[in-house]
């Protein structure tokens, strides 16, 4: 499973890294540091990835079965 964080949509609500600090981190403005990135989530972090996606008020985090063509 791939996690993808939309840099345009992310507005720095900080819910994702609060619920999943082992997967995501914050920058000094409060945005998720990994915004704009897409990477494969190891199986043991899948639950965290779902938690993070479910916590975001901007729907900025997507979980994808396959890597997007442009990643």
């Amino acid at each position: 499973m791939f996690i993808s964080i939309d840099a345009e949509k992310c507005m720095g609500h900080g819910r994702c890294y609060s619920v999943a600090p082992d997967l995501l981190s914050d920058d000094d403005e409060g945005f998720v540091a990994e915004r704009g990135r897409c990477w494969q989530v190891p199986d043991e972090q899948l639950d965290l990835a779902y938690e993070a996606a479910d916590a975001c008020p901007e729907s900025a985090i997507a979980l994808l079965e396959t890597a997007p063509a442009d990643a």
Partner: protein
Amino acid sequence: MSVDSTETFRGLPVSHTDFTSYTEIYEHYRRLDADREAARFQFNDTTERGFFMLQRYDDVQRGFQQHATWTTAVRSALNPGIGEPLLPQDLNGSAHQKLRKILNQFFSPVAIRRMEPQARARCIELIEELRPAGRCDFVQEFAIRFPTDLFLSILGLPTSDGEKFVVWSEEFFAAMLSGDMSTATVAKKNIMDYFTEAVNERRAHPGDPDVDMVSRLVQADIDGEALSHDDILTILLTLMLAGLDTTRSALGYIFTHLAQHPEDRQRLIDEPEMVPKAMEEFLRLYPLVFQAGREVQEDGEFDGLQLAKGDVVWIGIAQANRDPRKYDDPDTFDMDRHGASTHLAFGGGPHRCLGMHLARMGIKVVLEEWHPRIPDYRISDGVELTERGGQLTLPTLPLEWEA
């Protein structure tokens, strides 16, 4: 006072619901829920310009993302007049982004965590002052004092000024709401003189711009230009207007709930690690900024809703937070609710609340420090609670406990 299904405006049902009066507590949520369920989009004609209402979660979330064509030239659908100039609110596009970049750093979770120990100590002091009396007006004696001190400390100003500052800001709010412009002017002058002195002092003796916000504002530049003195004062006044009444209001609704639901209170005492989750659910269930306004800058369509340049849009925050399409049993408090933090109580898009992490820290600290000291409290007998419309707040919340 409701949606009239026979009357239409540009093909939409017309709502006559008033959202600006004083009512019994929670009445606004009933009106907001009823309007949302009456029609997906509707036009409300209770203000001079009227407004087009987005009310479902998905529409509200996407409404906040229309920032390219819908701007804060109107900030509140209920009050589309210009009002006080506010920064960063009044900016849009890249000018807004550049100012937010300077401010965000002071309001980020990292920055707020640095403030927490001091905030906690102050919170304990205020609670200990009230405890021996066995009663207080929670709203007027506590819920406004603590956010005022937080506000001063984020600016790098002494919290010992809180006592006089709270008097001015209260006078200013009250006078603005009642339209008493002469009192408002005097109160505003006191506040502006105080800010001016602080700014001048930091120009003469700069503090560390990484932790002292006034020093940073004085030194900051945007595209090679310093912020003007007036803009700095506007930013400070905006933070005061945006941060004090809101946090007080949130605390008022939360403590009303906890006074009336001893089982939820007990759970927070037994499982303090639940405080952050409970807080998100409180913010979802009791949003106080229940709408944001925007003005449409060019003709266009929003998923079938036709809008023209100059139209006022209502982005229905509270209606999204209580939308049954998004949340099961939405009008019920559920501390274990999955995904409560997707609520839009702090707005969304580029104008999302600058102070959200400060407000969260403040509320969390109060919930954690109040209950070990005053675990058992109730609303005084015979009190009928009311709420102010426009932007919700409780004028008073008398609480009692065994001292």
